[in-house]
C-alpha cells in the first residue's frame, strides 16, 4: 500500500497545477475573499503572490519526507492567511492516500476552490467533511491549524492512537545587519508587512536593527515612508473593532515608551529594549528595536523565540547564528513566500 516518493511528489505537483488554475482564474474568487478576509481587493491580489504554484524537485522531496506516511489524514483548517490551505493540503496529500478536510467556516474560499479543482483534475483522494467533533473522525493523523486552545481541544477529543499535528500561531521578525541600507531594507520589509495585513504567522511584527539608535531611527523613518507608498497601492483592509481598540492602546503605549511614525494605515514604533516583547497587533504595525551588538539582538529575541516562525534578514549567512533553530530564515521581502518544502511552521 505504501506510495513511492515519486507518486507522492506527482500528487503534490497535481495540486500545484490546480493552484495555477485557481490563480489564473482568481477574479472569480476575489470578491468572496474580500468578504471573508477583510482585505481590500488589492490586498487579496497581493496575497495571491504568496500562493505556491511551483516547487523544485528537491523542495518537494523534503516536503514528502517531512509528511510521513499515513492511510488517512484529516485536516482542520483555521481562518489562516487565505492561501495557506494549499500547503496544508499538500502536506496531507503527500502523507496519505485519503485526505478529509474541514475548511474554516469563516474563510473557506480557497480550500473549497482547491477541492473543486482537484476533483476536476481527477484526484479523488480528497473529500470535504463538516464534522466538528474530531472524535467522529477515523483518520490516523489529524493536522490542525489554529490557536493553541484549538489544538489542545482537538488533541483532547481525538480518538486514542490518532496522531495530532498542531500548527499554531506565530510571528515573523526582521533582523537587519549593520550593513543594511535603510531604504532598500525598509522597502523589502514593507512588502512582508503589507501582505495579508500582517495576519499571518510569517508576518513581521518586530525589526531588530544592529547598530545604534540613529540607524534604527533611520530605518523606522524609511519604513514609514515605504508603508505610506503601499497604503496608496494596496490600501489596508478592514480591522475589526477589537483590533482597532488593541491598535489604539498599543499606539499610545509605544508613543509613551519610545518614538512613533504614524499614518492613517500604519504605525512604526522605535522602542527601548524593555519593550521588545510588547508585540504590536496586526494591521501594519511594527516595533523597531536598536541592538548595539549581535549579543544584544540575541538577548532581545530570546524571550520571543518560541513564537518566532520566520526571520527575514538582509544578511542570512552572517546573522543565522542569532536565529532560533526552529525558525525559517529568508531574505527581506520574501518572508511570506517560503519554499514548499514542508510546514511553514517548524516549531
Amino acid at each position, binding site marked *: 500500500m505504501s506510495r513511492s516518493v515519486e507518486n507522492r511528489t506527482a500528487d503534490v505537483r497535481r495540486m500545484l497545477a490546480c493552484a495555477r488554475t485557481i490563480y489564473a482564474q482568481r477574479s472569480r474568487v476575489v470578491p468572496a475573499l474580500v468578504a471573508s478576509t*477583510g482585505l481590500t481587493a488589492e490586498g487579496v491580489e497581493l496575497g495571491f503572490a504568496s500562493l505556491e504554484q511551483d516547487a523544485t524537485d528537491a523542495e518537494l522531496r523534503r516536503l514528502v519526507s517531512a509528511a510521513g506516511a499515513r492511510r488517512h489524514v484529516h485536516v482542520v483548517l*483555521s*481562518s*489562516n*492567511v487565505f492561501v*495557506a490551505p494549499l500547503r496544508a493540503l499538500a502536506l496531507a496529500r503527500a502523507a496519505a492516500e485519503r485526505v478529509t478536510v474541514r475548511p474554516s467556516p469563516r474563510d473557506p474560499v480557497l480550500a473549497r476552490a482547491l477541492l473543486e479543482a482537484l476533483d476536476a483534475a481527477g484526484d479523488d483522494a480528497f473529500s470535504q467533511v463538516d464534522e466538528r467533533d474530531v472524535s467522529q473522525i477515523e483518520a490516523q493523523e489529524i493536522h490542525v*491549524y*489554529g*490557536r*493553541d486552545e484549538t489544538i489542545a481541544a482537538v488533541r483532547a477529543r481525538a480518538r486514542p492512537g490518532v496522531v495530532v499535528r498542531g*500548527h*499554531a*500561531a*506565530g*510571528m515573523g521578525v526582521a533582523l537587519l545587519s549593520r550593513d543594511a541600507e535603510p531604504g532598500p531594507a525598509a522597502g523589502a520589509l514593507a512588502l512582508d508587512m503589507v501582505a*495579508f495585513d*500582517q*495576519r*499571518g*504567522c510569517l*508576518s513581521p*511584527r518586530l525589526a531588530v536593527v544592529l547598530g545604534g539608535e540613529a540607524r534604527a531611527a533611520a530605518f523606522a523613518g524609511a519604513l514609514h515612508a515605504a508603508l505610506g507608498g503601499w497604503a496608496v497601492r494596496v490600501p489596508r483592509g478592514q480591522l*475589526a*473593532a*477589537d*483590533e*482597532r*481598540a*488593541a491598535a*489604539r*492602546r*498599543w*499606539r*499610545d*503605549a*509605544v*508613543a*509613551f*515608551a*519610545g*518614538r*512613533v511614525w*504614524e499614518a492613517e494605515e500604519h504605525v512604526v514604533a522605535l*522602542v*527601548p529594549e*524593555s*519593550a521588545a*516583547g*510588547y*508585540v504590536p*497587533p*496586526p494591521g501594519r504595525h511594527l516595533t523597531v528595536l536598536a541592538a548595539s551588538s549581535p549579543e544584544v539582538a540575541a538577548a532581545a529575541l530570546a*524571550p*520571543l523565540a*518560541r*513564537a518566532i516562525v520566520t526571520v527575514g534578514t538582509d544578511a542570512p549567512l552572517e546573522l543565522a547564528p542569532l536565529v532560533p533553530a526552529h525558525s525559517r530564515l529568508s531574505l527581506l521581502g520574501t518572508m511570506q513566500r517560503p519554499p514548499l518544502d514542508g510546514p511553514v511552521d517548524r516549531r
Partner: protein
Amino acid sequence: MPEPFDALAADLARFQARSVAGYGRLCAARGVDPEKIRLAGEAPAVPTDAFKLAHVFAFDGSDAAVTFHTSGTTVGARGTHAMRAVGTYDAAALAFGRATLASGLMPPVPVLVIGPSDREASDSSLAHMCALFARDLGLPAPFERTFFVRGDALDVAGLRARVSGLAPTAPALVLATSFALVHLLDALGGARLPLPSGSRVMQTGGFKGRSREVAPDELRRAVADTFAVSERAVVGEYGMTELSSQFWEAALVDPDSPHGVYLEPPWARVVPVDPETLHPLPRGEVGIARIEDLANVDSAFAVLAQDRVRRVGPGFELLGRVPGAAPRGCSIALDEMLSP
C-alpha cells in the same frame, strides 16, 4: 474652597508633560499642547501597559521611596509604579477607606489581613495598603496575629485563634484578596469563623489562576456565611498598582446601592471611554476605564485601564477585563505569546 478638579488636573498634566519624558511624547503624538489643557478630559491617558515598558515617574529613580510592581505577566514584564514619598498615597487610602469600608466604625478595631505583610511583599501596593490599614485603623497586635499568609501559606489555625479571641462587641476588619478567600473557604471545608457583630470584610482582585474561579455573588454569599456577617458587609475594593487611590463598593454607605457599584473619592474619577477613540461615552454605556487620579502626582494622573466599566448611580460598575483582540489568521496574539 478647594481648587476645582479640572484645575488641579490641568496643573498635573502640565507638570507631568514637563517632568515625565514619556508623557511629553504621548501629548506630542496626540497633538495635545499641555499648556492649553483646561479640562481633565483633554489630557491623554497613559495606558497601563506603559508602566511595563518605561519609567512613569517625574523624578530620578534613585529617589524612589517605594516601588510597587504589578503581578501581571501580560507583556512579559511587570508594571512598575515608583513613588518618592508615600504620604499622598497613604493619606488618600486612609481617607477614603475610613469613609467607605470603615464607615460607622470607631477605630482602632481589630484588623486581620488574609494576605502577606508589607515586609514579605514589599513591592505590592495592596500589601502596603493593608499594612497601612492595620497600623492606622487597627488595634495593636503582634505581626503573626495580623497577617495570615506567610511564605504563600495560609495560616488557618492562627486565623481561627485570632477570630475566636475577638471580643464579641468589637467589630473587626478583615482584608483579603478573592483568591485568598477561596483558599480559606476550601481550607475551612464548610466550618465557620464568626466575626463580631458589625464586622466588615474587604474583598479585592480577581483570581489570576491562583485559585479556582468563583462567581462574585457566590463568593460573597459564602464569605458572608463563613464570617457570619451580612452580604452588605462584604465590600469590594478596586485598586491598581498604577494608581494612588482606591475605589470601594458603596454597600455600606448607600443602602440602596447594589453590589458591584464602586464609588470614587472626590479626587478621582472613572470615565468609561470608547476603546478606539478614547472619547467619553454617554452614561450607561460600557467602555474602558479612563481613571483620573489626582493623587498620582508624580506619575500619570490619567491612566487607561484594561477594565470595562459603566456609570451607574453615583458610581461605576466594574464589568471585567477587556478581552484581547480576537485572533484572525495565524498571527500570534500578545497575551498568547508571552503568558507563562
